[in-house]
């Protein structure tokens, strides 16, 4: 239990650093050229991601995290 709390605290700290506005450049609307590219999407190949999620869902005890829902197979 203790290690979980520790990990959560660490993640929370990471989040604080990430999402506090001081650590962040103010990227203007016209400066989104790089970010607008498909390859910069967090899930940049949704079809591939779907296939991978399906494999890991059926081969491992953990699932989810990337998007809401999913599952739905009685994989052996």
């Amino acid at each position, binding site marked *: 239990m203790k290690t979980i709390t520790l990990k959560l605290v660490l993640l929370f700290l990471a989040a604080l650093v990430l999402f506090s506005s001081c650590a962040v450049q103010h990227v203007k609307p016209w400066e989104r050229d790089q970010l607008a590219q498909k390859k910069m999407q*967090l899930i940049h190949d949704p079809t591939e991601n779907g296939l991978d999620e399906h494999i890991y869902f059926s081969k491992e005890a953990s699932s989810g995290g990337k*998007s809401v829902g999913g599952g739905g197979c*009685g994989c052996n």
Partner: protein
Amino acid sequence: MQLIKNRLRIATCSLLAIAGGAAAADGDTQLDAAMLFYFEDGRTDVFEPVLNLKHDLGNDQSIGVKFVVDAITGSSPNGATPTNHPQTFTSTSGSQGEVRKRVEVFNAGETPVRMFQDNRISVDLNYDRPLTRLLKGEITGHISAEKDYVSRGTTLSFTQDTPDRLTTFSVGGGANFDVVEPTGGKPEPLKNSDSTNHFGNANKDEYDGMIGITRILSRRWLMQLNFSRSRDKGYLTEPYKIVSILDQTGSQIYYRMENRPDNRTHQNVLLSSAYEFTDDVIHFSYRYYWDDWGIRSNTVEMKYRYELSEASYLEPQFRYYKQTAATFFVSGIIDGTTLPQFASSDYRLGNLQTTTYALKYGFQLEDLDGDFNIRAEYMRQGDDPHPGNAIGVQKNYDLFPAVNVFIITAGYSVNF
């Protein structure tokens, strides 16, 4: 020879586009297709084609439909532990009145597996639209069916941008209603596998919730933090999996059907990021998972997209996964001791590590629109073959034979 009429039609379309605009705009339908071939240790083959269509409805709305077919033939460990004598399993497979009995014998030290064959078809629909200038909503529906399993689900999610569009909050929820229809009915929990009765189908429901925050950190850096929680209720046991009952020396005597709790709550925290160097992009994600079955896992995933030219790239991918065992995971139960309430020998609930290496190559062709990619992937699952809790003769055998999987994926996407 193409009809003059048809060539005229094409020319006219681009001519009259001026009255409705300057030039033929990009197509508003996106097609993604992929085919996956999966080979596991020469014992399981999977063929899985995917077709994904997304259509722009205008006014920033879109609908999508995704078809997946999953054709599996092969075998997977049935839960029985390797032991010091041959093990024999009889399975019945029947179709339309004709019943076949199949006897399989596994040598001493071999891990028994169960043959199976299944085809799964799934259809997903989704629709998304803006609700205000900065708020978007998406609704999805899902249905899938295989021989012994039907799943139906729906999700609803929202994303809200801040006015500077640097931060996006997301929130979503979903529900899944599944029906498990084991061949011959579901067995009695922890009953002797030879004398168990089988009756009826079972339900399994899942409720999911998720919140997330995505932030633009710089012109080239995007990061996301997600928290999700799911609750599974109902029949979570694998109806065909068994647990070996051992004597004091660790030698197998008979089997019982496995049994799992009918509740499971699990959580994920996922941190993911995309960062662009001059042209290359690195994707990184870390996931921490925990549930009330005692399973904890850490997942690290990395993809590096190396741009070879304007029209091609190479993308090495790496993933490492490590989980701890469920509290009721056993490699066998000693005969005469009190039966636990729950027990499973499914290796996927034990201590487990998965390592995946992949190399993807993406390219465009001169005479054909669209993007192509092909990926070769090697995945290895394993853990200590001689765990400390092995009993007697079990110590002599490989309790966790490594699983080697080779996967080829080919993908194509085009706008029309």
